[in-house]
């Protein structure tokens, strides 16, 4: 289980990268991507997936 970023609506603000407890998000070229191998959906670390909670565009950080 992992999250993903919808590139077409992402503003590339980087807030998700800053919040991710697992360092699973990084910039690749002009867009941000989730490394699904590292993403834990924030299980055990926080009550809700941090990327989705901080993202300014609803529906951009969503379950894979």
């Amino acid at each position, binding site marked *: 289980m992992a999250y993903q970023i919808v590139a077409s609506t992402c*503003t590339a*603000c980087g*807030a998700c990268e800053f919040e991710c407890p697992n360092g699973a998000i990084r910039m690749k070229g002009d867009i941000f991507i989730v490394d699904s191998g590292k993403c834990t959906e924030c299980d055990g670390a*926080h009550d*809700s997936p941090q990327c989705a909670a*901080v993202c*300014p565009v609803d529906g951009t950080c969503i379950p894979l």
Partner: protein
Amino acid sequence: MSSAIIPLNALGRQKSAQTGGCSAQGCGSGGGQAADGLAPDIWQRVKDHPCYSDEAHHYFARMHVAVAPACNIQCNYCNRKFDCANESRPGVTSERLSPEQAARKVVAVASRVPQLSVLGVAGPGDALYDARRTFETFDRVAEVLPDLTFCLSTNGLALPDWVDEIAARRIGHVTVTVNMVDPEVGARIYPWIFHGHRRWTGLDAARILHERQMEGLERLAAKGVLVKVNSVMIPGVNDDHLVEVNRWIRERGAFLHNVVPLISDPGHGTRFGLDGQRGPNPAELKGLQDRLDGGVRLMRHCRQCRADAVGLLGEDVSQDVTLDKLPETPVYDPAPRAAYRAVVEREREDRHRAAAAATAGLARSGLPARLVAVCTKGGGRINQHFGHAREFQVYEVDGRGVRMIGHRRADNYCLGGDGDDDRLDDIIAALAGIDTVFAAKIGHCPKRDLAKAGIAVIDSYAHDYVETALADWFQAALPAAFTA
């Protein structure tokens, strides 16, 4: 005496008889006042900062670097996805910079723009959310340009966590955007905040934000940081409420209050824009500012600059200094800035003396105040051709003096060489309530068309100081009984 006014008799300044009277910003020094009615030590800290002193904004330039793309709250008046080179509002920028790139850009600009005095981090997100990027930028620049003034803008949510770091870096100017002190009002402006690893909405979000803003403001002020509070005026949502905001921030030591009009073009895709929430017109903005007069010192010359703005206020050259146009390793040459500063010191003294002399007689006049517009390229002079004006500075003249009270945008009437009529109509609309414009020069046709619209354009004061020209003009209009 209103705090936003440059009293004419203080323009000559040196040793003004007034002491006290500085209640608005609680400067507490009680010593002789310096320019702008400020205590001398405070004047030293704001005299080169174009946003903190409307006197300084005639001479000095500031530069914003866009190293803070991420934000921790959502505002209904902001849409950071929009990114357009013609934009001119906070939160919009076309270049995202790493701290290292930003420092490179600052050094290159400082060598080319001798007026540069201030480096600010103002977004496009929040400067204190991912604060390490902001601080790293300042640290890198400080190594090369230790005399630049540093400032940053924040929504205040993360501010209490960073007060000590800010003070330690001698970041002496911080802007906090405060749109409400009542969570009920806040809930209509902020759909959510991200705090303590979770998203908060509604009244909870507004209450947390409000508490953090007030804590941050109070602690910064206690450290001697000059805090400017920006408030976005949203008609029907917080316009009356900003009187209350002004009182709260005064009690917590804010230095300046800057009320900016909501920008809500639906094309920007902001919540307010899409919902048809309108911004205030110039008369409404001035009406509110006049109600706030006497509280915290007001800033009336803000241009709501882009997050990567470069240059004098109202004159953005950011598109000329994008990263691809800069040298790989710029070498800083301090000579132009030093030479420019020396010129400004002389020019300032001269201007203050001239203004004081020219306006000495005004105090006897009981004539009603007049609003006029001025075309200027800086230096406090009427030195711009009407057709080149991208904005007009608005001054109020009456028996108490000549004061800048705002500006009106008029995006370059003269684009094609000889202006076209639609633009002139826009300018006439932008000048609502103003019947006299001062310019260095104006073409025959626009002058005639403006006259038909009831607006007189005067170009006989070309290159004079604004204060001397307006005082002379106002004086000339006085009936003999007043001048006797």
